[in-house]
């Protein structure tokens, strides 16, 4: 039995098996085209092997030529498959070159199929026999046609294409892949080209055996491709480990989220979409499956909080990449109730600083907010009680302040009555009297308005205010009392002092309290010591400091730590609430209130207030 008839079918069946395997691989998992192209190349090698066997065993020139002619079809499929395999597997090689190879191969195939005889030889070749390894092979002797160059140049082009792709991959650093794929294809191609040139043009008397070379290429590529799943095994194992780790950390995260009762949300800024966890949806009263966009979420926010939240977010974006922000805001639920949420979020920005994505948590802080509000209300009530008590201390002075203009009005009215009894009353005098009456009425109204403002219950209303005007207003209120008690009030506030941010009424209360304390401290003091001074200075870039000093004996050092305690008092009729209330008020403003001993006697109470920003109202 001839070994050729055994080897060639073995090559064919091996290739067919490879083709079947890689077709299945491709068919089951169509992630990549490479297995399909390899299957095609293998299948075409099978077909080519049979064509080759029939020309090696040809009896007549016709048989030889026909076999060679049909061999062009698998050769075409093989070349094209290899080209696209390289492109898909290596992700390299020039696309236009691949298409050019396809075009050239198709052209060559077309030529072969359309030519009546064959493309390779000018006339029917004379057949000869060549002895090799104890076997005789049929060879042809004839002059080749130049058309054959078309097919060979396609093979050369493939060589260039593969070499180019191989270099790219080599440069990319994947040298093993470049060598295995690029190197093997180039080697076998060069061998095939050399053989065909030697046989067809050089009239070398050796049998044309390409199928072995084709098989070589297919085998190397199959080996390379099969290595990939093997290499993937440790990756899979790693993946499994990291997946377990991921699951663990996810479990921990979910525990933390549950413990903190946190709702999680992610906002895709470009698409205006928001994803929220079930808990987050429950906080906003959205259904778990509802598709949400940003506007629907913003509509749930309390109108007063929308702008503030937007500004906070803008500040976080402006601050830096990955800026984070924290905000507390109200949500109005569909049933009309209000819920307070506290949100902590991070912003991701792109290279131009535009926000791309925001991730955040939200937590229900309604109970805490209500408690805070209650505390605040209580503090306001205590502050109000403090003001009422201050007004009580000022009552007789204020009664005097009001009775002055009222008395003046009465006297003027009576005088006018007397003028009118004249037969020809002096109208100028009467006009003057009426003007005076109006002026005095306004004066009385002002004092009453002052008292009313201080006696009203009043929530903190922060505004930008002028310290000078504030101090002058308070001094106007205590002036009468100071006069009766023979105390001189000095005010020293620079005209260009920055405005502060605060509540007019509450700050007046603090100043009133400190000034009245100062005047109380002067009971029994010598005439030259009977002074209370109010000064204001810029403390630093952020704060204004206001001091109230008196010329009294000062606070004894052992009492200093206690004077801000509630119900601590040294006065017979004192409540001991003035200083604690004042301190609470100043701290609510973001400032500090403290007492200082002074060299040379006297007490000084100082407090700081934050400077108002220029734009603030």
């Amino acid at each position: 039995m001839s070994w050729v008839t055994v080897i060639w079918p073995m090559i064919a069946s091996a290739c067919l098996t490879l083709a079947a395997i890689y077709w299945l691989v491709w068919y089951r998992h169509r992630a990549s085209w490479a297995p399909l192209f390899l299957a095609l190349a293998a299948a075409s090698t099978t077909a080519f092997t049979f064509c080759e066997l029939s020309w090696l065993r040809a009896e007549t020139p016709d048989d030889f030529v026909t076999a060679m002619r049909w061999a062009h079809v698998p050769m075409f499929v093989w070349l094209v498959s290899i080209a696209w395999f390289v492109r898909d597997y290596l992700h390299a090689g020039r696309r236009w070159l691949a298409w050019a190879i396809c075009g050239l191969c198709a052209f060559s195939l077309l030529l072969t199929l359309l030519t009546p005889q064959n493309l390779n030889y000018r006339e029917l070749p004379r057949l000869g026999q060549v002895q090799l390894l104890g076997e005789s092979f049929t060879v042809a002797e004839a002059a080749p046609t130049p058309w054959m160059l078309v097919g060979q140049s396609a093979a050369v082009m493939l060589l260039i294409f593969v070499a180019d792709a191989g270099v790219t991959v080599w440069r990319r650093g994947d040298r093993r892949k470049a060598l295995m794929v690029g190197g093997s294809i180039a080697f076998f191609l060069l061998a095939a080209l050399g053989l065909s040139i030697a046989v067809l043009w050089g009239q070398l008397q050796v049998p044309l055996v390409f199928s072995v070379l084709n098989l070589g290429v297919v085998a190397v590529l199959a080996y390379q491709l099969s290595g990939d799943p093997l290499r993937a095994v440790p990756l899979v194992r790693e993946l499994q480990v990291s997946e377990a780790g991921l699951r663990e950390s996810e479990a921990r995260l979910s525990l933390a989220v549950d413990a903190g009762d946190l709702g999680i949300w992610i906002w895709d800024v470009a698409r205006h979409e928001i994803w929220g966890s079930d808990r987050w949806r429950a906080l906003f009263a959205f259904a778990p499956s509802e598709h949400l966009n940003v506007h629907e979420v913003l509509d749930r926010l309390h109108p007063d909080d929308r702008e503030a939240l937007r500004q906070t977010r803008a500040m976080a974006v402006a601050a830096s990449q990955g800026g984070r922000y924290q905000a507390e805001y109200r949500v109005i639920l569909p049933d009309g109730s209000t819920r307070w949420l506290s949100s902590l979020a991070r912003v991701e920005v792109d290279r131009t600083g535009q926000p791309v994505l925001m991730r955040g948590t939200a937590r229900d802080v309604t109970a805490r907010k209500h408690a805070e509000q209650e505390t605040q209300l209580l503090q306001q009530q205590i502050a109000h009680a403090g003001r009422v008590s201050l007004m009580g201390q000022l009552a007789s002075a204020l009664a005097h302040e009001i009775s002055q203009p009222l008395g003046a009005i009465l006297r003027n009215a009576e005088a006018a009555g007397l003028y009118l009894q004249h037969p020809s009353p002096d109208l100028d005098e009467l006009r003057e009297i009426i003007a005076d009456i109006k002026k005095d009425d306004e004066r009385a109204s002002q004092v009453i308005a002052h008292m009313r403002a201080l006696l009203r219950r009043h929530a903190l209303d922060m505004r930008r205010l002028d310290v000078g005007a504030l101090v002058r207003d308070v001094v106007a209120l205590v002036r009468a009392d100071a006069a009766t008690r023979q105390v001189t009030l000095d005010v020293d506030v620079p005209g260009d002092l920055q405005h502060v941010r605060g509540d007019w009424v509450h700050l007046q209360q603090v100043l009133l309290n400190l000034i009245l304390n100062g005047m109380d401290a002067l009971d029994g003091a010598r005439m030259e010591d009977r002074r209370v001074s109010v000064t204001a200075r810029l403390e630093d870039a952020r704060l204004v400091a206001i001091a109230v000093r008196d010329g009294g004996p000062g606070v004894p050092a052992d009492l200093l730590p206690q004077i801000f305690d509630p119900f601590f008092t040294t006065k017979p009729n004192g409540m001991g609430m003035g200083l604690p209330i004042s301190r609470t008020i100043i701290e609510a403003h973001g400032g500090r209130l403290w007492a200082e001993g002074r060299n040379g006697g006297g007490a000084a109470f100082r407090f700081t207030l934050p400077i108002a920003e220029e734009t603030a109202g």
Partner: protein
Amino acid sequence: MNATERTVHIVDDDTSFRAATSRLLRASGFAVRSFASAMEFLERRDADAPGCVLADVRMPGMSGLELQAVLARSPNPLPILFLTGHGDIPSTVRAMRDGAEDFLEKCAPAAQLIGALARALDRDARDREARARHHDLLARFDTLTTREREVLGHVVRGRLNKQIARALDIHERTVKLHRSAITTKLRVHSVAELTRLTDEAGLVTLPAPPFP
């Protein structure tokens, strides 16, 4: 009684109230002088001008009550009438005890104010007359010689000429001469009248040697 004797001195730190009050009082026929503080009044007033003072109790610097104290020690203690914004009981009590003519609320009706001012001015006139008579009396007593005063001391105590002569170690006729000089100088006609005048002048400290 002429206009200057019906001068009201208004002392009040409140310009508006001062103006209104003086307007009313002028329209009611008073002469008015106003002062912004107690110190200003004390410095600028005519030392012996008649009239009365209408002052606010509560003023910066010297208060109404302090003014009252200073005024009372002066040779021309004008009657003082206080105004107050409210019923300040301790001040009222102190003011009245120290001889305030009256104590009115700032918003008291004009009739009440004018009535009180009229009373105060009448009292000033009376006090002034009494002070003038007293002054005149003292001037008359001043003309007596030391010996005559000694004799007068004995006479008002009801002693006889003989007793006086012995006590002073002088002749009885000399005592008679002194007595006639005293009655002439003091312009009196009887011992009873002499005793009354001496009493009125407050000369209780006349030298009076003990009865032997």
